[in-house]
């Protein structure tokens, strides 16, 4: 055979390739390629009709150029022409070009389809094979439309050649993946299942791939495949290696087919039929036995093929998780591999054992290998193997070995590769919390984490340690002492300053009795770090200082001096400046009692799942996120925002008590509380999981392989948009609050956080994907009336989790904007619409006024058109405190001692729009006996009175 070019060697092609090889530089190569492209282009455009051979040669060249990474924008027509050639070589090159270069949305598909149709009808198995390969590789929707009916027939027809059957099976698989709706299940399904019995192992191999995919989606339909697969597997496994001559690979009978059959069985639970089950167990035992037998060949190919089957069998055993005997045997086998000299086997053994650790039958058996795994962590030279060892240690950890495992992980962290440090930190933090019997151990562990790998300790981790310390009073004194000692280190990580600052601010008093950690020493220690820290940390420290003012009155003046210094009061950073000013003022004018109330110790956090876990799952990507339920729970916490952020909850959210106490008169409360901000205040953030904890919408990153892009072929009108999810109840819930879950179904959860000021608003919309599958073409659009302008600031395609909508109220409005969301899930197109709870009252600014002022204005608005009144039955229990909170949540000020009847509620505020401001007065009169309310609204504009009255009436 010729050395360089086989068969009908094309000289021109060989010369061209040699030229390219001889190019000395990239530039020379590009030059040569451009010359060739020009040549081919002129040949294709030339008057002279090209013969098949030349066309083939040029198409081959184009293919080669494409391989070198140059886009090819011509030659497609010539390739299509080759399809109709009767010469196999030409036809073959045409199909090759098309399946490599043409993507599924090409305009040529129709022409290609024609050629395919002819070849399928030709009854020439070679041509049919080419045509089917082409469908299997391109697989566009148009192709599915044209051939989805025919392929199943070819596949199950008695007279179809084996090789054509193989291609047809994979072809159908492709069409099912791209357009499941066009491949309806039918009579052919049972015939396909019986292909597992086919004499020809190639056909069985192809059919198994097809059946596995179909069975995942339609398990009932393909249930009979289980017994057929088991009997096929049994025949392979127990055969002497000579029986399957052609499919034996280094003395292992049909290894790839065995793997596929074992995969197929993992779509189902253990077989119910005892006979089938017995036979399968026998197979699995045989596979495990063979691993112990002396190898039939010394070749590595032999052991690799054998082990491929073995690992797949172990996967099935783990999947079934029902035969303790097999599970323990699997574990022992993997244990042997842990010390194997082949790195590949050690890697795979660690990986499999990780899943084995979660089975109750084998957990203990896995634990016996702890020393080997720890040793792997220390000695493996390959980071991916060490990573697997970390995973396994994490999986095998329980109360009995937690201390040892955490210690080893911390130990490893000192030298760990940078790429996996953050993950190890998360794992250690989770294990330390989960298995902490003694919380002093937990605190020590986390502080060690910060010491060893401070840069990799995410906020979730240190937020969590604070939550735990605050919730457990048995550990607070210890925590204060430990952070105090840790802060003594000349250089400590900023995260330690944060944790230390927070904990001393809360519990510094618990160690203040010791003269070595007197209040002043604590303060000086913290303040010595102050100037080295970033703004958020300094902001946190300022809050610690004001807490110290309350805890340690004796150092109040020292702290006031610090707050008063120019570097604080005139700080360029607005957040720091504001805190300094406010805290200084607070410390000056408030009495001890008030200080004690405002700066009281943090109340315990509601018990909830650690956000670290969600973070870890997010890091690990889709494959390992097993418990979606947990993420969902986590996310709903995020969005409910149930714990309101505040220095002290009462101080900020309910304005009335504070303002009087501080004697600031009618000054709006917002001047005292830090402005609502989503990332300004660290103290605030401790309560809310940061938006980053929201699991990504698309599990996994938006990489090339997420899924084929279906954008262009999708039929948008396929399914009419659902009627707007009015969900009135949910919508009304938002009238008096700004955060929460707006919408939820099986696929998607939408949460909101919003803030409004005057006529402007900003809404953060969080989209949570509740499935493990990626949503494609995810497009949210906000539709709103002219009265309201919203523009979308940030909108990452595909994988976004958070969207920011800026809102401006141009004039008063009735209709809420509608959020329309379109995306593709699995094969189906989803379209849903939800009302965004942006209601007129969001643009309320509360106005305080005296009784006299109120009634004077009330009288001024006496025009009947300005008043709207509604009398309605109470829908909720009539609780005065709840009613007050609702009126404040509605946005108006709640005016006390204005109405002569103390049972009545009155409120006042101004609705801000871009064009005007509308003063509003409201009065709510409850009648407890009748369980009724009378609500009266007076504003300068009738429509506004009406709208506000409608909105508020729904709340009680």
């Amino acid at each position, binding site marked *: 055979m010729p050395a360089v070019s086989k068969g009908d060697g094309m000289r021109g092609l060989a010369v061209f390739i040699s030229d390219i090889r001889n190019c000395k530089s990239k530039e020379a190569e590009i030059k040569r390629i451009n010359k060739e492209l020009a040549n081919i282009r002129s040949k294709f455009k030339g008057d002279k009709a090209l013969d098949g051979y030349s066309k083939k040669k040029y198409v081959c060249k184009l293919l080669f150029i494409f391989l070198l*990474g140059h886009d090819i924008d011509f030659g497609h027509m010539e390739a299509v022409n080759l399809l109709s050639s009767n010469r196999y*070589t030409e036809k073959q090159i045409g199909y090759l070009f098309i399946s*490599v270069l043409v993507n599924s949305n090409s305009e040529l598909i129709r022409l290609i389809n024609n050629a395919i149709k002819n070849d399928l009808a030709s009854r020439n198995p070679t041509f049919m094979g080419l045509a089917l390969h082409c469908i299997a590789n391109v697989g566009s929707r148009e192709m599915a439309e044209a051939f989805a009916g025919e392929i199943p027939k070819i596949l199950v027809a008695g007279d179809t050649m084996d090789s054509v059957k193989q291609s047809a099976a*994979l072809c159908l698989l492709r069409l099912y993946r791209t357009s499941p709706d066009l491949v309806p299940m039918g009579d052919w399904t049972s015939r396909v299942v019986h292909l597992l019995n086919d004499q020809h192992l190639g056909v069985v*191999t192809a059919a198994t791939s097809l059946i596995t995919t179909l069975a995942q989606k339609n398990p009932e339909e393909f249930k009979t495949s289980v017994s057929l697969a088991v009997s096929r597997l049994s025949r392979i496994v127990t055969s002497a290696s000579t029986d399957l001559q052609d499919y034996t690979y280094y003395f292992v009978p049909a*290894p790839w087919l065995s793997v596929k059959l074992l995969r197929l069985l993992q779509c189902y639970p253990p077989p119910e039929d005892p006979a089938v089950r017995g036979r399968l167990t026998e197979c699995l035992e045989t596979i495990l036995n063979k691993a112990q037998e002396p190898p039939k060949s010394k070749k590595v190919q032999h052991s690799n093929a054998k082990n491929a089957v073995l690992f797949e069998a172990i996967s099935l055993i783990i999947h079934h998780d029902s035969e303790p005997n097999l599970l323990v045997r699997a574990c022992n086998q993997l244990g042997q591999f842990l010390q194997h000299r082949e790195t590949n086997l050690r890697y795979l053994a660690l990986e499999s054992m990780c899943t084995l650790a979660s089975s109750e039958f084998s957990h203990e058996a896995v634990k016996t290998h702890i020393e080997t795994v720890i040793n792997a962590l220390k000695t493996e030279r390959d980071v991916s193997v060490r990573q697997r060892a970390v995973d396994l240690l994490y999986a095998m950890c329980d109360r009995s070995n937690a201390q040892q495992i955490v210690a080893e992980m911390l130990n490893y962290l000192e030298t760990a590769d940078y790429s996996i440090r953050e993950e190890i930190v998360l794992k250690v933090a989770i294990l330390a919390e989960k298995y902490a019997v003694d919380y002093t151990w937990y605190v020590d562990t986390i502080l060690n984490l910060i010491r060893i790998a401070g840069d990799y300790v995410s906020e979730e981790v240190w937020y969590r340690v604070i939550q735990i310390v605050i919730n457990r009073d048995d550990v607070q004194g210890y925590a204060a002492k430990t952070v105090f000692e840790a802060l003594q280190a000349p250089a400590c990580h900023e995260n330690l300053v944060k944790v230390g600052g927070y904990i001393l601010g809360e519990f510094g008093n618990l160690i203040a009795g010791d003269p070595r950690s007197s209040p002043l020493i604590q303060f000086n220690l913290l303040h010595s770090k102050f100037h080295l820290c970033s703004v958020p940390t300094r902001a946190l420290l300022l809050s610690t200082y004001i807490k110290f003012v309350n805890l340690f009155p004796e150092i109040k003046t020292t702290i006031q001096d610090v707050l008063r210094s120019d570097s604080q009061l005139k700080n360029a950073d607005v957040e720091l400046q504001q805190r300094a000013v406010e805290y200084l003022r607070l410390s000056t004018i408030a009495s001890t009692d008030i200080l004690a109330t405002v700066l009281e110790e943090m109340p315990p956090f509601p018990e909830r799942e650690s956000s670290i876990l969600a973070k870890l799952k997010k890091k690990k990507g889709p494959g390992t996120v097993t418990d979606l339920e947990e993420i969902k729970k986590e996310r709903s916490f995020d969005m409910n925002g149930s714990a309101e952020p505040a220095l002290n909850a009462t101080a900020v959210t309910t304005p009335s008590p504070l303002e009087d106490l501080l004697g600031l008169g009618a000054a709006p409360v917002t001047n005292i509380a830090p402005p609502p901000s989503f990332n300004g205040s660290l103290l605030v953030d401790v309560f809310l999981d940061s938006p980053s904890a929201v699991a990504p919408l698309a599990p996994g990153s938006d990489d090339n*392989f997420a899924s084929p892009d279906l954008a262009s072929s999708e039929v948008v009108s396929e399914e009419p948009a659902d009627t707007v999810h009015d969900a009135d109840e949910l919508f009304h819930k938002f009238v008096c609050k700004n955060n929460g879950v707006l919408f939820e179904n099986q696929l998607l959860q939408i949460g909101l956080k919003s803030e409004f000021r005057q006529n402007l608003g900003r809404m953060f919309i969080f989209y949570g994907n509740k499935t493990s599958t990626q949503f494609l073409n995810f497009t949210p659009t906000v539709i709103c009336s002219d009265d309201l302008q919203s523009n979308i600031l940030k909108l990452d395609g595909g994988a976004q989790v958070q969207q920011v909508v800026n809102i401006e109220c141009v004039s008063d409005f009735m209709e809420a904007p509608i959020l329309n969301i379109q995306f593709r899930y699995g094969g189906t197109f989803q379209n849903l619409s939800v009302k965004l709870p942006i209601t007129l009252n969001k643009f309320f600014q509360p106005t305080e006024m005296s009784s006299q002022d109120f009634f004077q204005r009330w009288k001024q608005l006496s025009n009947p058109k300005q008043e709207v009144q509604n009398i309605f039955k109470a829908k909720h229990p009539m609780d005065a405190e709840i009613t007050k909170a609702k009126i404040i949540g509605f946005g108006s000020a709640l005016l006390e001692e204005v109405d002569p009847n103390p049972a009545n509620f009155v409120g006042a505020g101004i609705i801000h729009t871009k064009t005007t401001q509308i003063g509003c007065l409201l009065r709510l009169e409850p009648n407890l006996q009748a369980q009724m309310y009378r609500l009266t609204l007076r504003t300068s504009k009738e429509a506004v009175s009406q709208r506000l009255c409608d909105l508020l009436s729904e709340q009680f």
Partner: protein
Amino acid sequence: MIKFFLMVNKQGQTRLSRYYEHVEINKRAMLEAEVIRSCLSRSKDECSFVEYKDFKLVYRQYAALFIVVGIDQTENEIAVYELIHNFVEVLDKYFSRVSELDIMFNLDRVHIILDEMVLNGCIVETNRNRILAPLFVLDKVAEG
């Protein structure tokens, strides 16, 4: 599922690429460069499986040529590892001692062999004689 099948030499020149899910050409060049870089940076005693984005690379080196296969989590790593070797043995049989040059100059034939073995990202045939059957037909036609 197999996502792609690459043959790249030590200089980073792609000798064969087959994608089973559509990837834009500019992304291909980047992916191939990254893939070969991550394989080259590994020593002999490191394992042949590399996690890359949300899929895995399984690679084998033959002289100066790397064969790298991208797979998702539904594939068995070591089975794919041996599939590479089976592929190389088929090439070796057809070209009688295959070299990088054979692959360059007979790209169409290498494609045929691969297409016979892997279709639509699934292993479809592993029997060497059957894999080569269509090629022998082709060669006969060409000679005759």
